[in-house]
């Protein structure tokens, strides 16, 4: 039987790359986003590329109450669920404006937890499946330039690690992805160092491979694991004086 992947937050560049990678791997694909009409072109694209069955679904990360219904109304229960949505927002605005701050926190943390809780219950009951959460290296240490986003991702990383621990005993695999810089629309206004920056296709390739290999935590690109090790190792009394 064709396995199915559900992609939550399917309009982002990373989601497009992930969907294409899974389509090439002969998965049936469920695309979920706030405005499903924006998924039409991607749906066509995936179908043309792989002949796969592709369906689209309305999903709003911030509409927590709808998550249970959303998931249980899917035509097929997915084998792999990838939580891609995220909101970088503006640190500066968020410092002064709760609306922006709460949008950052709720999209990246609460929304993800809310929907994955539902997925986790179902997969635990079925005793199979894989959950992939795209977190961020920004969650590994708070920095002045993006600690709102970073703290939400830190929460998400901790959630995933707890979920992994719990679902292991139910035969469900949970993988955390810690991307560093990636060239996407979200980052196009930042100056990124080319050698450290991945393309969405690189991230997608890494994820596809690592899910099969049942990895727990992947960094992409791989050297971010070591960069973050160094950044975490800087003593706080020095770190706080830096302007990061």
């Amino acid at each position: 039987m064709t396995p199915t992947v559900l992609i939550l937050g399917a309009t982002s560049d990373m989601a497009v790359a992930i969907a294409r990678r899974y389509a090439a791997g002969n998965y049936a694909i469920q695309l979920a986003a706030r405005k499903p009409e924006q998924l039409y072109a991607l749906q066509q694209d995936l179908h043309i590329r792989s002949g796969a069955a592709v369906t689209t679904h309305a999903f709003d990360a911030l509409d927590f109450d709808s998550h249970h219904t959303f998931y249980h109304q899917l035509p097929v229960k997915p084998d792999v669920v990838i939580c891609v949505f995220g909101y970088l927002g503006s640190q500066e605005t968020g410092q002064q404006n709760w609306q922006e701050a709460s949008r950052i926190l709720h999209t990246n943390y609460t929304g993800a937890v809310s929907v994955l809780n539902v997925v986790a219950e179902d997969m635990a009951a079925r005793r199979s499946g894989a959950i992939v959460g795209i977190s961020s290296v920004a969650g590994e240490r708070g920095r002045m330039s993006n600690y709102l986003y970073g703290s939400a991702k830190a929460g998400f990383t901790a959630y995933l690690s707890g979920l992994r621990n719990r679902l292991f005993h139910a035969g469900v695999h949970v993988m955390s992805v810690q991307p560093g810089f990636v060239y996407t629309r979200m980052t196009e206004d930042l100056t990124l160092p080319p050698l450290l920056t991945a393309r969405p296709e690189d991230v997608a390739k890494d994820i596809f491979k690592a899910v099969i290999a049942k990895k727990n935590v992947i960094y992409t690109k791989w050297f971010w694991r070591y960069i973050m090790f160094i950044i975490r190792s800087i003593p706080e009394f020095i770190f706080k004086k830096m302007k990061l």
Partner: protein
Amino acid sequence: MRKQLSNWGNYPVLTCEESSFSQEEQLKQYVDTHDHIIARGNGRCYGDASLGEHSVSTLRYDKALLFDVETGDFECQAGMTLDQVLEITVPKGWFLPVTPGTKFITVGGAVASDVHGKNHHAEGSFSNHIIRMDVLTGKGLITCSRDNNSDLYWATCGGMGLTGIITSVRFRLKKIATAYIRQKQIKAENLDEILRLFDEHAHYTYSMAWIDCLQKGKAFGRSILIVGEHATPGELNHKQGRDPLVLPPKMKLTVPFNLPSFALNNFSVKAFNALYYGKNYKKVMEGVVPYEPFFYPLDAIHHWNRGYGRDGFVQYQFVLPIDRKEGLTAILRAISDKGWGSFLAVLKVFGKQDDLISFPMEGYTLALDFPVRKGLFPFLDELDALVLQYGGRLYLTKDARMQQEVFWKSYPNAAKFMDIVRTYNPGGKFRSVQSDRLLLTPQ
């Protein structure tokens, strides 16, 4: 965000604001709220045609929208690269109707440049194969084709993005039975022989010649003619025949950084050319090769443009009418006298074409690379004068420096083109550094 942008020639480098879109609404909103916009695909044009105050990258607008495997009709968003098109269509037995020498350009770019390929004499340029397209003009999103809004259609083909931003294109692919090309290479001693060989091989679908433009005397214009046809399954060897529509995996080379400019000098170019000419040890060589090295020999070396050093290079491509081949001798002689040859000099014969401002016309076209250095631009102005004298013109997609008179004297339909651009791009919302330079921006 403002950043330093340049296209494939690394010349000129300009500060532009670049943004992208992945949904039509995002683009519409951007166009409504900005001026001085020009679409930019994969940055493989050579000069300043896709640079401007606001360069809008189409690369994220790259979805396949339709592929009819019975008829070969294919539609995609304009930011899809030819590479991606081939990846989707070749395994199903369909090929691009026309392809330039790199597959790393976008479909939108192929239309805006109205690219030509090795089959121009037989199958025309890219616009010959378009069924319809959508263009976000200054008057909104308009669908056009030969029958519907045809003025917009013709001004958009080869129109360098001045009618607006091409958002999607439907075109017809070409049926193939294998992913291989049966190719034949023939050495020519000089210019007369190569032109004669072109005539003799005019029945081949694909043809082009590599020419060593540093030679003088008897070997002036020595070259290798390369012709080809899509191979039939029966022409493949056993290994190729196992999966006739799938190419074997290949190695990719890259030039990791800009080479110092002294790496390219008369000596190294001569040595390269001698090796290239010498590798064909027989007068005629035949074989069946994958389509990639046949159509895209330089794509195998990523960033080959860095071989020209930090100052960049310009590509000089001109076409002369078919009855003015003496102009070719005059121009080649001027180049060999100066001793400024390029690695890559490609000669081709174009078939008939009569578009608004598309580059091809029936005649001979030659493409040359020149690294940017002191004295180059005055020298190219001298070549321009020869091109004009012989009734030819230059390719806008590769241009970074032509003077406006040269353009206006050599493109007879330019005024007609401008009338249409004025209709669809009132006030010159869509404009590039090139269109400003050549007085192609409507006021």
